[in-house]
């Protein structure tokens, strides 16, 4: 086993920013807007670094797909403890239409190329909320998957994953190599300390293009329109439960 873990990190609009839809409804405004690493990807990086600190794995490689700025996200991962980075360059229109299927193909290719033992991703990105990349990548690689992980432990050449599911918690044991996706309660990401931020400067980020990996990134999806959700209307207060039932019947809800 190579002892190498690939961690996918996505550059998304910062969670605290108020999103604005572009006037032409083609998407959201991203220019000049604060971006940062997807919170679930942070949790994924933290888990990978923890595994390295516990000596279960030897190397953490942070991967991001996107334009030049994606390197900042990789650098944050390096400052958290990743050893090196891979920047898959996707720009312009290609980047606008880049979705989980293409990213999965890229990750699958990289996982094979880097002889990865483990691929850890965030469960979903906070911009598209797709929750697909991890699952698709596992399928493409024909690897087992432990998604929505809230606890991960390596036991020999198997991985025990506690998953958060609708009914509660499910514990599974899967073989390696495998794909894991991180859920909220998996860990609390560490702060990138200043000494580590400075050290991260020396770590390498390799640049590749999707074509180099033999991946075709043309999208089969077309975004027709993006709209804000409808304005939330004012509520109505009612005095009694009977009033409430009456109002609900009136509006046709029940």
């Amino acid at each position, binding site marked *: 086993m190579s002892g190498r873990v690939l961690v996918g990190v996505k550059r998304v609009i910062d969670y605290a*920013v108020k999103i604005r839809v572009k006037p032409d409804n083609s998407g959201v405004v991203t220019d000049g807007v604060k971006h940062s690493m997807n919170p679930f990807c942070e949790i994924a990086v933290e888990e990978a670094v923890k595994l390295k600190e516990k000596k279960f794995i030897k190397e953490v490689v942070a991967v991001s797909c996107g334009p030049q700025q994606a390197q900042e996200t990789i*650098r944050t991962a390096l400052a958290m403890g990743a050893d090196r980075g891979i920047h898959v360059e996707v720009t312009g229109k290609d980047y606008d239409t880049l979705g989980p299927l293409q990213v999965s193909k890229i990750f699958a290719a990289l996982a094979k190329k880097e002889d990865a033992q483990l691929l850890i991703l965030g469960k979903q990105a906070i911009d598209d909320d797709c929750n697909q990349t991890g699952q698709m990548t596992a399928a493409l690689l024909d690897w087992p998957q432990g998604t929505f992980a809230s606890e991960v432990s390596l036991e020999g050449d198997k991985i025990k994953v506690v998953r958060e599911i609708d009914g509660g918690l499910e514990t599974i044991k899967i073989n390696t190599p495998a794909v894991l996706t991180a859920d*909220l309660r998996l860990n609390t990401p560490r702060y990138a300390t200043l000494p*580590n931020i400075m050290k991260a400067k020396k770590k390498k980020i390799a640049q590749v293009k999707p074509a180099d990996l033999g991946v075709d990134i043309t999208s089969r999806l077309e975004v027709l329109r993006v709209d804000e959700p409808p*304005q939330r209307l004012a509520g109505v207060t009612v005095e009694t439960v009977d009033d409430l039932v009456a109002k609900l019947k009136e509006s046709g809800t029940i």
Partner: protein
Amino acid sequence: MFHVGIKSTVCACAHGRLSTKMALPVGALRLNQLAVSRNFYKFTCCVGARSLSDNVSSKPVPSSATEVAGDHLIYTRDHFALQESLRKIVDQEINPHVDQWEAEGTFPAHKVFKILGNAGFLGVNKPVGQRDGGWWSHGELKATNVVKGFFYPGGGGVEYGGLGLDFSYSIAVSEELGNIRCGGVPMAIGVQTDMATPALARFGSAELKEEFLLPSIAGDKVACLGVSEVGAGSDVSSILTKAVKKGDEYVINGGKMWTTNGTQADWICLLANTSDGPPHRNKSLICLPMNLPGVHIARKIEKLGMWSSDTAEVFFDDVRVPCKNIVGQEGMGFTYQMLQFQEERLWAVGNIVTMMDNIIQETIQYTRQRKIFKLPVLYHQSVNFRLAELQTEVELLRSLLHRATALYIKGNDVTKLASMAKLKAGRLAREVGDSCLQYWGGMGFTSDVLVSRFYRDSRLLSIGGGADEVMLAIICKYMDTLPKK
């Protein structure tokens, strides 16, 4: 040169997210607020109640975000990475508790400093280490009155845990700390990093540095600065605290005022008269543990603002401390304190510039949704024009700050520019606070909003860390307009 009343780097409240007091694990708090912010709520402002939708108010995009890393005057990608990481700490460990700390009149300095210390933010421009048997300094400023040394670790020396970075990184830290939603906590941090420790870092003996500097950088010990007294603020040379040599000890009698962190500090960097010579040459800096017999914390001072920062009046009653606790040379204390003023003052400006940005942004958001005579308050020309004026001046101040910092890290004496920046910062903060508070109307007068806290906290800036009048006198000196003797 004079020194002043309140020894503090001053900052006021910042925008951030109005935190909800939910018992969620930290990570969940962030993601929960994320879930909320994804909805396009109108910014509601119920009197008294903090609704979840308040968290929706978007973070103002700091002006540095509009500049690409390569274009910034002094900041590189590393500075921005530093700020991003520090911002997370501010958002997760500090801002959620600010309201409570303001109400309690103190904040847990040991806890907060330990978190910052672990992340390396308390020793940004402090020495990395020291070689056994001595140090060597790298680069000296040629300008008068200023000596700056960088220390590098030699083989087999003490590691102080500092990062040895230049002052532009300290300014990056100070600007980012301006996102804390009060002035008290950044001020307390500033005392720890840039007021109580610079002289020790530059001139202290190896032993002294190991006992006091190392744990202060690590965040294990809380420091405070003892310079101002009840009878001596701007006029540092007239302090009365005396340290009389008796054998190999100093016996200290006197008192200090306006001691930020004073009620919880482990040690105080004390300026005292150690001889009978001329007033600028008879003072020394002494590292004094606060738990020594004879040290009395007389009271915690009730103030107009900066409530989360505990400010103490301290008395010294025959306190005995070894002579080796003196920083550098005896009689040089006054000079040592003076040397770091440029840095202290620029640091204070860094804080307030971000805070003013945030207050203006928050005021824009409020006035955009608040209607008066059927129009948003913001759409009235007197309002949007005034905010434009204020923002213009904030940008001017920011430019001055960065210009002074750029010159300083190249080795220039920036006393004049730093004094101008501090002067402007104090006055502009009062204008911004006053004008913005007006636009919040009745809400601005309540304790529920940040602008009223900023109004109170920022008033200190024209007084502490070098009063406006002192700054003006310094500038006149450089302009050569003072009366000749």
